[in-house]
């Protein structure tokens, strides 16, 4: 028989304002096995915890129930406290009377009644709790960073500097990411390449960093401290060790009609290519879909011209398997497709472009060599219109419900750069709100208006109307003047919403990391654990977690690195003891449980079983508690009830059900 103590937290007035905590204490004392109950303003405080300790000692408690906030908030706190005072931490149960009760109900009587029932359910569960011991697992002192943009690069450098090995897996032929496509960066107008390239070089040269470009994560298994990852190294068709990066192959390649991804398809590239001049590694890849040799078997020009003999048409994809202790996701973003926004005439006119395309147009290495030109006729635009929030803040299914966060600032940057370099060109920005929270951000935007004469008009654009003469008519209203605006423009730039890289869903699934409805990875806690995923050992860096600019990305990248370092610094980790366990006497050995186990944690052994005097060899299930993550799929699959989950046993859950339905 358990001796149970019940501790009811006021949480200041968060709970006590709606739940009569004294009444809950009174009701608790009526429960079978409850030998102690008390309330306290802040149970989670040092004083609150020591009261729990005193009660454990004085009343010889064998189990405790804390009626407080969500177990997701403080279960760990109270378990640690219990352990400190000599009680097995798994003899603690939380009744969530804040998030699930006081915060959502107004009527005191009703809330108190519900809190009482939740308390009873927890008491009923504790009656059946058993002390559990956490096991230990080793930590592989190596980290994986998925994505080689600025987020991934920074995370990798920080981890590597602390002395741990890091691998970067990058899908494209070079690291650098979105930032390498940018021309200048706000709010200081540094040249993007000038600040990024040194970082890329640093990562490449770092003795602790291994970079796998043109590679993708194929499969992930294991758990925190012990991940096993299959990485597909796609066939480059170019020997990375032999290639000198001379570039002759690209020059001579006769297939030059493939849209250049790096320049957002604004010009073409050869079939053998490096995405950009500063690419790391500076080794081209052959796009086999475009390559004449691969399509027809006839060509081989690159092989002929390569003095280093680096071209190898026989290369095959290679799968390598590596072990890691921690994984950082830094998969970044792309701009949304604008197929559904026909009213802005993107796709109908070449002179309607996205902001990212404008970055390439303004970049000296871009399709126009940095000259601001209309892509239709190469003429210099005299009137440029920027349209904000294209696909952002849209609750319909065409766009994204969130604010993309970076657009207000980069548009101010673009406007300013254009006005600075081409004073004859007028710039008009149609905005809904100008959002500039950030150090020196609003000042930056004001400079665009005050010093550079950028014309900001409040009001979303209704339609961009291509004119027979090749110009564009922008139809809008000035909401402040209540006036219809028909603005003639030579070029229209759309501040297109950003969205997480589409691959992230696949990666999140492999990592069992949660993802929200917008495909952003979910953090373990929105405020207190912003760089950790809820899945232990998986960390988040950059825009994969939510829209952010470069400074924020770099800050988060560093934070993720610190979390990784903190993990890799440990030699051993405590494992979750709430794992499945099979009762050998009941097990049929039918394999049904193993069929549903996502971790391959269940194996079968033939054992000599003594079943009430009958001794026979039986095939029985054995759970590897280091692999088991405690989902419980096996427990339901098991027809005989032999498989049960510690900490969430059948009887414990049934006791909760009974208490609630009582």
């Amino acid at each position, binding site marked *: 028989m358990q001796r149970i103590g019940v501790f009811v937290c006021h949480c200041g007035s968060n709970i006590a304002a709606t739940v009569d905590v004294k009444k809950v204490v009174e009701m608790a004392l009526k429960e079978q096995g409850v030998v102690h109950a008390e309330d306290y303003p802040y149970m989670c405080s040092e004083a609150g915890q020591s009261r729990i300790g005193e009660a454990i000692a004085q009343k010889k408690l064998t189990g405790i129930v804390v009626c407080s906030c969500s177990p997701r908030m403080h279960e760990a706190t109270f378990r640690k406290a219990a352990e400190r005072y000599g009680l097995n931490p798994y003899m603690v149960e939380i009744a969530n009377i804040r998030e699930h009760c006081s915060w959502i109900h107004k009527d005191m009587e009703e809330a108190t009644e519900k809190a009482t029932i939740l308390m009873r359910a927890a008491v009923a569960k504790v009656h059946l709790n058993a002390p559990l011991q956490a096991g230990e697992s080793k930590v592989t002192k190596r980290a994986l960073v998925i994505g080689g943009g600025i987020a991934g690069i920074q995370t990798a450098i920080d981890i590597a500097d602390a002395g741990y090995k890091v691998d970067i897996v990058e899908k494209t032929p070079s690291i650098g990411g979105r930032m390498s496509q940018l021309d200048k960066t706000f709010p200081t107008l540094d040249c993007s390449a000038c600040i990024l390239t040194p970082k890329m070089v640093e990562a490449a040269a770092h003795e602790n960093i291994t970079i796998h470009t043109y590679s993708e994560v194929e499969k992930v298994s294991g758990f925190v401290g012990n991940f096993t990852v299959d990485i597909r190294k796609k066939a480059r068709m170019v020997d990375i060790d032999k290639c000198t990066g001379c570039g002759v192959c690209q020059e001579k390649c006769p297939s030059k009609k493939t849209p250049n991804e790096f320049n957002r398809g604004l010009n073409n590239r050869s079939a053998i290519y490096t995405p950009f001049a500063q690419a790391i590694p500076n080794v081209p890849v052959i796009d086999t879909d475009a390559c004449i040799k691969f399509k027809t078997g006839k060509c081989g020009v690159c092989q002929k011209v390569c003095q280093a003999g680096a071209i190898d048409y026989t290369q095959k994809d290679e799968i390598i398997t590596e072990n890691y202790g921690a994984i950082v996701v830094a998969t970044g973003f792309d701009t949304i497709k604008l197929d559904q926004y*026909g009213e802005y*005439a993107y796709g*109908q006119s070449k002179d309607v472009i996205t902001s990212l395309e404008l970055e390439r147009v303004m970049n000296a290495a871009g399709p126009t060599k940095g000259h601001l030109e209309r892509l239709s006729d190469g003429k210099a635009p005299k009137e440029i219109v920027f349209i904000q929030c294209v696909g952002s803040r849209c609750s319909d*299914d065409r766009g994204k419900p969130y604010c993309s966060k970076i657009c207000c600032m980069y548009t101010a940057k673009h406007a300013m750069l254009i006005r600075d370099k081409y004073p004859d060109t007028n710039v008009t920005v149609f905005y809904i709100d100008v959002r500039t929270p950030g150090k020196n951000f609003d000042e930056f935007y004001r400079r665009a208006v005050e010093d550079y004469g950028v014309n900001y008009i409040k009001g979303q654009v209704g339609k*961009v*109307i*291509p004119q*027979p*003469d090749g110009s564009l008519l922008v139809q809008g209203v000035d909401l402040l003047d209540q006036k219809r605006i028909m603005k003639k423009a030579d070029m229209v730039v759309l501040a297109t919403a950003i969205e997480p890289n589409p691959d992230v869903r696949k990666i999140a699934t492999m990592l069992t990391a949660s993802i929200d409805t917008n495909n952003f990875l979910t953090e373990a806690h929105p405020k207190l654990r912003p760089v950790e995923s809820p899945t232990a050992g998986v960390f988040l860096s950059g825009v994969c977690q939510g829209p952010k600019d470069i400074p924020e990305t770099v800050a988060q990248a560093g934070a993720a690195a610190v979390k990784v370092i903190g993990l890799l610094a440990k030699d051993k980790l405590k494992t979750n003891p709430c794992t499945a366990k099979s009762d050998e006497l009941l097990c049929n050995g039918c394999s049904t449980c193993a069929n549903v186990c996502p971790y391959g944690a269940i194996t079968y052994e033939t054992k000599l079983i003594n079943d009430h005097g009958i001794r026979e060899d039986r095939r029985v299930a054995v759970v590897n508690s280091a692999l088991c993550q405690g989902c419980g799929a096996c427990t339901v699959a098991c027809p005989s009830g032999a498989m049960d989950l510690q900490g969430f046993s059948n009887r414990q859950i049934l006791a909760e059900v009974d208490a609630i339905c009582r």
Partner: protein
Amino acid sequence: MTYSYYPGCTLRTKARDLDKYARACAEALGFTLEELPDWQCCGGVYPLGTDEIASKLPSVRALDAAKQKGQDLVAVCSACYHVLKRVNDDMANVEDIQTRANNYMGLEDPYKGETKVLHFLEVLRDRVGFDELKKKVVAPLTGRKIGAYYGCLLLRPGKVMGFDDPEDPKILEDFIRALGAEPVVYPYRNECCGGYISLKEKALAGSMCDKIMDSAGGFGADCLVTACPLCKYNLNQSGKLPVVYFTELLAEALGVKEVAL
């Protein structure tokens, strides 16, 4: 293939051509339009008010009649198509309208939006296929530069109509191409002609139609094609370019124009 056919009141009067050409073309293309018996006028505009039931009933009757026959329901007039499709959407998805309309109708087997509503153009695109249509053309309209005028009713609201991309539609252009003519894409092809407002505000409708005509003319169109009698009427008031029904063009290309009349 046989379709239930809802001509609508305008096709019985001022827009007889639209109807006759449609029937003749259907025959030439090997499908049958079977006119629903006792159809009633759709009302010309879709009643936006969520509490308007009575004005939706003529459409429900037509839709249910098609359901009884197990046929898809085809309309040629943009307005009829618009009203039928939206009422059908209500009947399928808006529980309140569904219940109340069925109560009015007193049907044994309640109507729940089962009928598929098709515009004649959709039949051409999705059932006949423009490639197939192209093969049946006997008198290609080679050399003609035709601007498609969609107007509002075929396209919007895009989610309910599901007819084509409401901001950058293609179906009429593909249709024009199939007939051997050159489609002229111009940005005002999905802007409003003024609609019913031309009854009292001729000038306003006129200026809207002028913009459309100017834009189409500017991009080189020598005539406009439409599916809507009201659009045609309004555009004709502007008169800058000739306007024809799409069925007329089709009949011409299929060589059944003379037969039809």
